[in-house]
């Protein structure tokens, strides 16, 4: 009975747009759902450093290198905000890292695609960060206080990521024929996977209903995806590139674009571990974590030494 009262009180708070804070009572399923979503978000930030990191040493100018380095550093910082946010729900960093490394936790499937050319750095900033921003702006209104606050912080830092990416694409598409072709190729490869970032259709999404009821998510996968499609179409046109979706058509009645169907077989294949880079991404994380062990050990032993000196 007490449990039922608490459930009701909890849902009343949610319905009244009152944020849930770490020490409040919450249903176990809400806590689990949040841990899953926030840790997945954190893993995405951290794994997302790899595809772009691939180009830091080969950036075409010092300016571009400094920008890319700063962007990749930001992603690491965003990972930190999000891991800490998940920790307010009672899970440890170690448990989350283990889940990432043993494959039981996911990260955004987009990062399993390889970065084959320099233009991919532009396409990622513009499209991948662009899609992430659409999602994260919506999540600023999520019901869990710490998650909402970290989204506000992240969105503030994120807009430079998208703008530098678009600026890079604009430079290429106003450049030589070869540069323009490189931009087009990159757009072709990253457009569809960016749409997949919003997840399955609402009718297929396993977590959507409870996430919406608890206001963990504020807008559905399909609504957010539509926003992204609508905002991206004129940006592609301005670049003077071909739109990768041949079925894209303005629908006057709806006031939005109609678009072609996503290749869902590819989506599920990549999510379930069979993208180009899944194994490499996780293995790289495992290696980096192992290779960094001496730093953590050195920190711990320094701490010990300081303590014994003080005693």
């Amino acid at each position, binding site marked *: 009975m007490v449990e039922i009262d608490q459930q009701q009180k909890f849902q009343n708070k949610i319905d009244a747009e*009152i944020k849930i*804070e770490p020490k409040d009572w919450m249903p176990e399923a809400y806590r689990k759902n949040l841990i899953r979503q926030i840790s997945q978000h954190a893993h995405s930030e951290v794994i997302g450093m790899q595809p772009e990191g691939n180009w830091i040493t080969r950036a075409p100018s010092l300016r571009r290198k*400094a920008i890319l380095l700063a962007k990749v550093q930001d992603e690491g910082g965003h990972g930190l905000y999000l891991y800490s946010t998940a920790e307010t729900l009672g899970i440890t960093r170690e448990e989350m890292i283990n889940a990432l490394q043993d494959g039981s936790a996911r990260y955004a499937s987009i990062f399993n695609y390889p970065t084959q050319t320099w233009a991919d750095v532009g396409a990622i900033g513009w499209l991948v960060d662009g899609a992430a921003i659409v999602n994260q702006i919506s999540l600023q209104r999520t019901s869990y206080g710490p998650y*909402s*606050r970290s989204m506000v912080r992240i969105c503030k830092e994120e*807009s*430079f990521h998208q703008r530098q990416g678009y*600026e890079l694409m604009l430079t290429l598409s106003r450049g030589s024929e070869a540069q323009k072709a490189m931009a087009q190729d990159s757009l072709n490869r990253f457009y569809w996977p960016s749409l997949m970032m919003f997840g399955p259709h609402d009718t297929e999404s396993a977590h959507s209903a409870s996430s919406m009821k608890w206001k963990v998510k504020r807008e559905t996968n399909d609504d957010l995806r539509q926003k992204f499609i609508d905002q991206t179409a004129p940006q592609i046109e*301005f670049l003077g590139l071909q739109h990768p979706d041949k079925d894209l058509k303005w629908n006057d009645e709806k006031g939005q674009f109609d678009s072609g169907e996503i290749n869902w077989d590819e989506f599920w294949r990549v999510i379930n571990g069979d993208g180009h880079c899944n194994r490499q991404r996780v293995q790289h994380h495992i290696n980096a974590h192992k290779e960094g062990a001496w730093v953590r050990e050195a920190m711990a032993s320094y701490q010990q030494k300081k303590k014994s000196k003080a005693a």
Partner: protein
Amino acid sequence: MSAENLQLFEIFLRSRRGLDHKHVGSLHAEDHEQALEYARDVYTRRSEGVSIWVVKSDDICASQEDDSESFYDPSNDKPYRLATYYQLPDEVNNM
């Protein structure tokens, strides 16, 4: 610590659900519990807060403002980390 010289606590208030706790001041108390009650009495008399954090002042480790140049440097020389650094044509500037 004596009856005349209690521990100092720093008080943080959340003015509204969903916002961060903000530092509002400090006070003397015997322990955390007492600090919490005093903070309620002193700092929330006009509905200033819905949640209070009390932290022993000794437990706060603060940066020194005098060191700020070496502590925060270098950040202002990297303007490319700001969105406004990227000039885009008007047609696509709303990004």
